């Protein structure tokens, strides 16, 4: 096509100028479209999100993050759909403050539901602009044009066509969007282009593969620990034996035999650095430190729940009552009540956190970090370096697992403190004991659930109370020193936010109260049990309690647990997942524990259900319990799952499978242990997780695709009901109710006696 050649050569000569041009064989065009250089990275610019390359492919820039579940593929599908491009022609760039605006990073399973929504809207505007341009170019009204595979053509004359690449390829949209003035998760933009009708979808609902799998499997991918910068030193932390102790005396002579070792000490913060990694590790072990004498700050572990019960509530949220709760309890014929307990849990990533900071006091500094939030994390590092945000670039690098606010932000802040002190690029890596012992924890809590029953056996009221540590001793953003362990060690007090949560369900009891209370952190700052978000923050603990209680309630009314849920849940979407899971699992109705024995094992089946921020999940767990050891095997899980329209069924299924296994691990094994001095669960022996011999035989996932609903978050919903499904299955097998997690062999065996 001569048009292409002419336009290409014109562009080459024209540079950034906007010029009028008449193309041979086509109508006059108003102007060469777009800008020659990428407009400023601002939320209101279309080019911030979508660009079209010379070959007609799209590069999109996303300010959220995928952490290994394929959210980026899902969002790429949404963009490809709106642009009528094959998925292979959409590349999604993420995790670089130089190329994307802050859309909140990975946060609360909002990647698709808010991040994807904004990108879809931007892509729809890009398509609108391209079709308008093609209309002028081809002399065909826009409503007479169709797009397929990135080529705009006349609906009536297929010879009239032009590709995206020819229209704008290599230049940048200079279109403005309407921006809602929010950054982070709430950022949204829209233009004149309206997204497609779902009935026209071709890419959404299919299962293109992940983009990062091959490079990870073949070993060619760079992880954070592989990043190297010229002149970089390796750093390691030196942690206090008693929480709160400060280094009183540091004996530099004790490490003088180690080549190039340097020591950085800022109040409680103590780190060593050396050019060789092994030397840094040796120095961290060899350094003689005299620590201040502080009183061990923790209660005895066995008194943890007693501490929570007795501690003063620093914040209470009564929720919003449904009906008259107090009246219903006053008039009750009987009351069913139970209490449940959940421990502190660790993120325990496969590798302890690592970060690299290239400090350039007079230029552009860079932090590489596997954080969920590279933009906020960059802000935190800029803060630690004492530089303005625009003088620091944040770049995501693959990390060792990410299930919330893990230790990554702490490593980045620590690297920044050392880099600033030494004036050198620093690679900070924690050791295992810091990764498991000192990462932010999911909070421990106590839950009390009560139900009022009338003389006819109807539930007239439900009252659910949680009391525990906040889920946000440290904010998950990492943007301030108070948000990071290093910042707190350097003297910044904890910036505590009291937050918990309540069950998400649609039980239609006439009266309901769902309240929570938060108690003060055990230590005011730099605590190894400071809390922050761990996958589905407070969801597992709350729904372990509420859904175990629903089972207890059903049995106390002589009803089958599935029948009870189907009778009392009111939202049709909730009913649909419960039915789906129960039917697929071959639910066996019962009104009491069945206590089935098969040789050496007790066999049980249990169900649980919950909503999460609009998504729904029901799980039927089938367990086998070894009668001599008390060990529980989650043999089979059947999952009913609904999260609105499904973008990528395969990756959704594998996301759910991952949650089932991690959730089973947390239910059966995981409990952060501590002495009165510090956390003592510091490796895989003292903080065991599920191993391959205990992996489920089968995870059967039933996906409900609601094409009439927007896509909703799916990263965490299936984490939520697992503990109760397992506890309810254990009850079915043994007749013994587990009201304290994790369900370790010792606790199970204790129930046999």
């Amino acid at each position, binding site marked *: 096509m001569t048009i292409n050649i002419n336009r290409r050569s014109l562009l080459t000569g024209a540079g950034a100028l906007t010029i009028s041009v008449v193309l041979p064989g086509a109508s006059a065009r108003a102007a060469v479209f777009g800008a020659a250089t990428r407009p400023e990275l601002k939320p209101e610019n279309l080019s911030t999100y979508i660009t079209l390359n010379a070959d007609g492919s799209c590069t999109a820039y996303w300010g959220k993050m995928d952490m*290994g579940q394929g959210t980026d593929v899902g969002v790429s599908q949404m963009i490809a759909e709106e642009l009528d491009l094959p998925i292979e022609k959409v590349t999604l760039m993420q995790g670089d403050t130089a190329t994307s605006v802050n859309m909140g990073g990975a946060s609360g399973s909002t990647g698709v539901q808010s991040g994807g929504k904004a990108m879809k809207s931007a892509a729809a505007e890009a398509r609108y602009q391209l079709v308008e341009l093609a209309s002028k170019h081809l002399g065909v009204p826009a409503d007479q044009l169709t797009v397929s595979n990135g080529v705009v053509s006349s609906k009536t004359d297929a010879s009239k066509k032009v590709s995206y690449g020819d229209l704008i390829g290599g230049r940048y949209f200079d279109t403005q969007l309407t921006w809602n003035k929010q950054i982070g998760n709430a950022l949204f933009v829209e233009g004149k282009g309206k997204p497609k009708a779902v009935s026209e979808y071709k890419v959404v609902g299919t299962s293109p593969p992940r983009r990062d799998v091959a490079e990870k*499997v*073949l070993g060619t991918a760079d992880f954070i620990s592989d990043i*190297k910068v010229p002149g970089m030193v390796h750093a390691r932390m030196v942690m206090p034996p008693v929480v709160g102790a400060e280094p009183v005396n540091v004996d530099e002579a004790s490490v003088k035999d180690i080549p190039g070792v340097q020591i950085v000490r800022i109040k409680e913060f103590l780190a060593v650095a050396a050019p060789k990694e092994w030397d840094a*590790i040796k120095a961290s072990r060899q350094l003689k430190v005299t620590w201040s004498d502080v009183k061990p700050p923790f209660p005895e572990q066995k008194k943890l729940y007693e501490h929570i019960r007795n501690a003063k509530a620093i914040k209470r949220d009564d929720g919003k009552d449904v009906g008259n709760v107090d009246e219903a309890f006053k008039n009750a014929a009987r009351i069913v009540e139970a209490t449940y307990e959940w421990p502190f849990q660790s993120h325990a990533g*496969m*590798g302890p956190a690592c970060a690299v900071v290239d400090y350039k006091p007079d230029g552009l500094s860079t932090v590489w970090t596997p954080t969920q939030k590279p933009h906020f994390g960059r802000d935190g590092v800029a803060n630690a370096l004492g530089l303005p945000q625009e003088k620091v670039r944040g770049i995501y690098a693959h990390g060792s697992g990410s299930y919330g606010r893990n230790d990554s932000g702490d490593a980045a802040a620590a690297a920044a403190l050392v880099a600033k002190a030494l004036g050198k690029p620093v690679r900070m890596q924690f*050791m295992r004991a810091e990764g498991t012992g000192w990462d932010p924890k999911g909070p421990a809590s106590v839950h009390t659930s009560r139900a009022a029953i009338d003389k006819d056996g109807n539930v007239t009221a439900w009252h659910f109370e949680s009391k525990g540590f906040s889920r946000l001793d440290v904010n998950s953003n990492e943007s301030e020193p108070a948000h990071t362990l290093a910042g707190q060690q350097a003297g910044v007090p904890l910036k505590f936010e009291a937050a918990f949560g309540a069950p998400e369900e649609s039980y239609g009891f006439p009266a309901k109260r769902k309240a929570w209370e938060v108690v003060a952190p055990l230590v005011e700052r730099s605590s190894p049990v400071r809390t922050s978000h761990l996958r589905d923050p407070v969801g597992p603990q709350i729904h372990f309690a509420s859904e175990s209680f629903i089972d207890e309630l059903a049995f106390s009314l002589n009803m089958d647990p599935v029948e009870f849920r189907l009778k009392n849940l009111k939202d049709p979407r909730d009913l649909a997942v419960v039915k789906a899971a129960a039917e697929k699992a071959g639910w066996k109705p019962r009104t009491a524990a069945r206590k089935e024995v098969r040789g050496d094992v007790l066999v049980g089946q249990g169900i649980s259900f919950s909503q999460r921020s609009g998504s729904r999940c029901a799980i039927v767990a089938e367990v086998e319990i070894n009668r001599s050891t008390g060990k529980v095997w989650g043999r089979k899980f059947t999952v009913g799952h609904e999260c609105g329209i499904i973008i990528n069924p395969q990756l959704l299924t594998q996301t759910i499978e991952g949650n089932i*296994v991690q959730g089973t691990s947390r239910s059966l094994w995981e409990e952060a242990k501590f002495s009165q001095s510090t956390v003592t669960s510091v490796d895989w022996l003292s903080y065991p997780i*599920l191993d391959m011999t205990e992996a489920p035989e089968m995870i059967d996932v039933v996906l409900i695709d609601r094409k009439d609903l927007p896509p909703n978050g799916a990263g965490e919903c299936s984490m939520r009901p697992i503990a109760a499904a397992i506890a309810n299955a254990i009850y079915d097998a043994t007749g013994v109710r587990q009201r304290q997690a994790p369900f370790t062999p010792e606790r199970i065996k204790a129930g046999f006696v």
Partner: protein
Amino acid sequence: MATRIELNVDGKAHTIEADPDMPLLYALRDDLGLKNPRFGCGLAQCGACTVWINGEPVRSCITTVDSVGASKVTTLAGIGKDGKPHKLQEAYIAEQVPQCGYCLNGWLMTGAALLEHTPKPTDAQIRDAMAGIKCRCGTHVSILRAVKRASQA
């Protein structure tokens, strides 16, 4: 004190200056710049650092560099044949196994060694062989699918 140590890694001879008691992991990562053996625990509890020494999976985080001698060290980069990835790697890609992928080195090095000895492992044999490897993302059922797929390839 640092001494001169010779290593044979993925068929290539290397000489480094290192403490004899330094774990092999740091020779591979820090001195040779290889990235697939990963630091997970330093305690031989997770498998992320696994390499083969004379074909047998070994935890490089607790193997001192001077104990290796003339043995042949193989990393993930060296388990393929004829310029092609190992069939277990191909199966992992087909099954879309990893989430974060940090643990993969341990699973692949251990799984590939299993398939060398036991080309058609049973489910129980796979589980037992992999019992000492950790995966925090919970991709265990995908891993089982991939090992079975590779054993049928």
